[in-house]
């Protein structure tokens, strides 16, 4: 082989490099916004973000069973069905590995699930490594979530906030003003759903801030561990905290088949921590020491082991 042919060899290999990765692997990527790790073990691919605490799992997908909710909290996001069982338009802030999206699109094919994601690399990896293909019903916009909400002129039946950066939520997505902006874009009978970590003092400040905007908030503790899903609504009545008044979980469960057990989700409702919330600060654009509250541990003994 002539030397000039050898020079073209890397070009011949490019298509192979661009193809979807197969076999077990670990890859790391430093992007403008994140330090990401993608690891495949067998058929499961994890998307993790590096942070001070180590690596935080953003999402995981079983490529042999993409509808499976590998990370527990994504199934708890379906608690929104108790409060708005027939969503037609859903806005999700934060793409992650799109594990929630695949089941949602399969269960509710006619519902629009619009996602807004800040990091283009997350979208690229979710497509190339975790096998997610956005469609007309599951489009993804690349921009800051708060900017998207501010510029959105439409109403949403569900707004899901699941935006993290290496285990931290950006401070501007934690304030009273942001929650007001979300409430303004939420349909009157809509539900705002957010993924919270219950292991730091930020949790109580978050709840206080949510409650300052939304008259009613109900909490679900995924697997009794640190991930708490909060569902909040704009109306005072009817009361949303009484499970007996919620739609029948068995009926609701039908489109989700056995991927999510809504009876289990319903049983994970936890009481409102009144005393802790009373002591917590209200987070505003003017006062949001989110990073400091996020490193102050709560009493972890409250969590089930």
């Amino acid at each position, binding site marked *: 082989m002539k030397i000039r042919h050898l020079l073209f060899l890397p070009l011949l290999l490019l298509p192979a490099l661009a193809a979807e990765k197969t076999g077990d692997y670990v890859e790391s990527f430093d992007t*403008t*916004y994140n330090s990401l790790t993608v690891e495949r073990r067998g058929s499961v691919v994890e998307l993790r973000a590096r942070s001070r605490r180590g690596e935080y799992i953003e999402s995981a997908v079983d490529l042999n069973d993409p509808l499976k909710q590998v990370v527990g909290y994504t199934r708890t996001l379906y608690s929104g069905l108790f409060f708005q069982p027939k969503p037609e338009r859903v806005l999700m802030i934060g793409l992650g590995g799109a594990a929630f999206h695949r089941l949602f699109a399969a269960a509710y094919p006619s519902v629009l699930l619009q996602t807004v994601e*800040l990091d283009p690399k997350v979208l690229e990896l979710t497509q190339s490594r975790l096998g997610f293909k956005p469609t007309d019903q599951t489009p993804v916009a690349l*921009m*800051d979530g*708060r*900017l998207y909400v*501010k510029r959105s002129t439409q109403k949403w039946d569900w707004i899901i906030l699941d935006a993290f950066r290496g285990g931290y939520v*950006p*401070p*501007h997505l934690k*304030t009273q*003003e*942001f929650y007001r902006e979300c409430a303004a874009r939420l349909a009157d009978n809509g539900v705002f759903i957010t993924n919270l970590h219950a292991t730091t003092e930020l949790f109580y400040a978050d709840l206080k801030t949510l409650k300052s905007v939304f008259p009613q908030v109900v909490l679900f503790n995924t697997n009794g561990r640190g991930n708490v899903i909060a569902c909040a609504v704009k109306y005072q009545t009817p009361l949303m905290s009484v499970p007996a008044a919620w739609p029948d979980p068995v009926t609701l469960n039908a489109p989700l088949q056995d991927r999510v057990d809504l009876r289990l989700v319903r049983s994970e409702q936890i009481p409102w921590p009144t005393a802790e919330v009373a002591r917590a600060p209200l987070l*505003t*654009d*003017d*006062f*949001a*020491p989110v990073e*400091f509250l996020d490193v102050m541990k709560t009493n972890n003994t409250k969590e089930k082991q």
Partner: protein
Amino acid sequence: MSLIVFHTLVIVLGILSMGFQLLASRLLNPHFGSSIIVWAWLISTFLLAFSLGSMLGGWISCQPRPRRSRLQVAAAVLGVLTLAFTAFFGRAALDQIEIAFIDPGTGLLVSCLGLFFVPVTMLSSFGPQCVQYLAARGTTPGAASGLIYGISTVGNIAGVMLTAFALIPHFPVSSLLYLWLAVAVLSLGGLIAILRTVPESPSS
């Protein structure tokens, strides 16, 4: 005694400059997020202000006395007024900028230049004049500039650490901006009074 006050004021100016950068990041946060992109624009704006402010201050320090005094007062007044605008109307301005500029990069550029560039440029213009003050009192120019920029940088460090770990966790950003405004009025006023005692420079 006057030298102690003088050096204290140089440190305070250092605190004001860099502490203001952290407050600026909190002002921008709700509108543009807190990514490295925001920080790149913010740091570049402040460095540009330090650069042009130093050159402006060098030019002012060479002016004949009556004109020099007038320019010092003008720089201080402009710095205080633009800082007051940021403190009182910064959030309202950012609301409008965010709507007016769809592209976040352009919005950031306009925000940084409109709200932070001028006050920091005016604060920075006093650095070379402080060097001139020491040089006129007999300190060699090299030693004077080394001392001023050394203690000013100590003030910068104190400004960052104080603002990040003591002030922002406990006080609203709006209150801190009013505090910055009050300290700027007092420190610039004190510094102008001290700088009035600088004799004519040989080149003027």
